[in-house]
């Protein structure tokens, strides 16, 4: 899929700037990788997870994908490593590791 940053980026000439800085699509922020910010990283231990999903709503970065009532591994492209999820997990299925 075509990415917005291929069309508009910090080197774009003025003629390519969208009118009034409006963007005519949704959720283009997905293209921006905030995972690089991490100084510590949550590690998901699937075998310990009971799929209670209590970690899902507390993520400020929508980085715990859920489908059909089950969570998958972290979205490391975007997870900033805040560690809230690890603290709320009742089963010790998330541990924080130093570094990216």
């Amino acid at each position, binding site marked *: 899929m075509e990415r917005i940053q291929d069309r508009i980026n*910090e080197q*774009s000439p*003025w*003629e390519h700037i969208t*009118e*009034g*800085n*409006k963007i005519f*699509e949704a959720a283009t922020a997905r293209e921006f990788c905030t995972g690089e910010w991490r100084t510590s990283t949550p590690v998901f231990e699937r075998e310990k997870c009971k799929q209670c999903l209590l970690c899902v709503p507390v993520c400020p970065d929508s980085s715990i994908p859920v489908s059909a009532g089950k969570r998958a591994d972290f979205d490391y492209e975007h997870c900033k490593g805040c560690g809230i999820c690890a603290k709320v997990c009742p089963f010790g299925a998330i541990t924080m590791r130093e570094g990216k």
Partner: protein
Amino acid sequence: MAIRERLSGNEAVAYAIKQINPDVMPAFPITPSTEIPQYVATYIANGEIDTEFIHVESEHSAMSATIGASAAGARALTATSSCGMALMWEELYVAASDRLPIVLALVNRALTGPININADHSDSMGARDSGWIQIYAESNQEVYDNFIQAFPIAEHEKVHLPVMICQDGFITSHGVENILLVEDDKVKAFVGEYEPEHYLLNPNEKMAVGPYAVSNYYMETKRAQRQAMLEARQVILDVAKKFEEMTGRHYAFFEEYRMEDAEYAVVIIGSAAGTCKAAIEHIRSTTGKKVGLVKIRVFRPFPEEELAKALAHVKAVAIMDRSEMFSATSGPLGAEVRAALYQAKSSVDTVNYFYGLGGRDITVADFEQVYENLEKMARTHEPVGMYGYIGLRSEQGKEV
């Protein structure tokens, strides 16, 4: 057949709004523009239009809600004056940089302080750099005609800029004059149905408006905005031409009055042009002196080259400002006109006067004095009464 009526300037604007039947009008009352939302509210109360009125709690919210409505895909407008516009200040910039085709009916009134409710141009002139198209009127007829042309200019795909339709507080807003109104169906056809391409409520596309943009984008954004203002020039002329085909009334960037052979010219904006015209007729008929007038209609975008051309053959020019800008030198029109003349390498003698601040009268005799000064300047090449206030009381006697 055009409809003959007698209307005040505010009634004329309200009538144009009724004919256009826009979608959303948020407004907050302020003298002397209050009647416009009052009339519109009455049309709505009587089921004559289906515009939604938003009873906002301030002018800041009036422009904010107008921006929201316009971004959402509605044809939206508001009306205000003076301090009301000052309270909208930040929002004027947002409307223009978001490229929203909003129309503002501005009834020019002096900015505070002291509080004064009468005409001058300090409100709109202060907003001259906000990115709005500004169109001024001499008479009720002109403000009505300008208003009907506003949406077609603003909504043109090459423009997408907000338009301010200005008239002088009380002088035209409350003065009742004979007026020719265009028939409803013709106005509807002229203005057309609003079909924006991009809008928040577009079922086929999501839109985000109003981002934070870092330096790498800001300057390119401003350049793009400038392009719209450049494109607006031709669009304003095209819309005027279409309007002339419909009504026979001619509009351009400015009106040239007795300029074909003029040696001494006044450049002015708004209702005082009528007084100046009376002075011109009197001078020409009693002395035969060749005096003329350029009345600016479109101040933004400023018609730099055209104006310099119109003034190319005159010996001296008086540029008349109805607002101070406290640069300690010129007024806003003075600065623009002299820049235009300089750029055209014109060596015409110029003088910049202030007049009519806070509703002070300017008379035929005052204009006759201005033309006398110009004649003297053409002989001596020295400006007479530079930056003087016409009609000012002073211990030293008259300034001009």
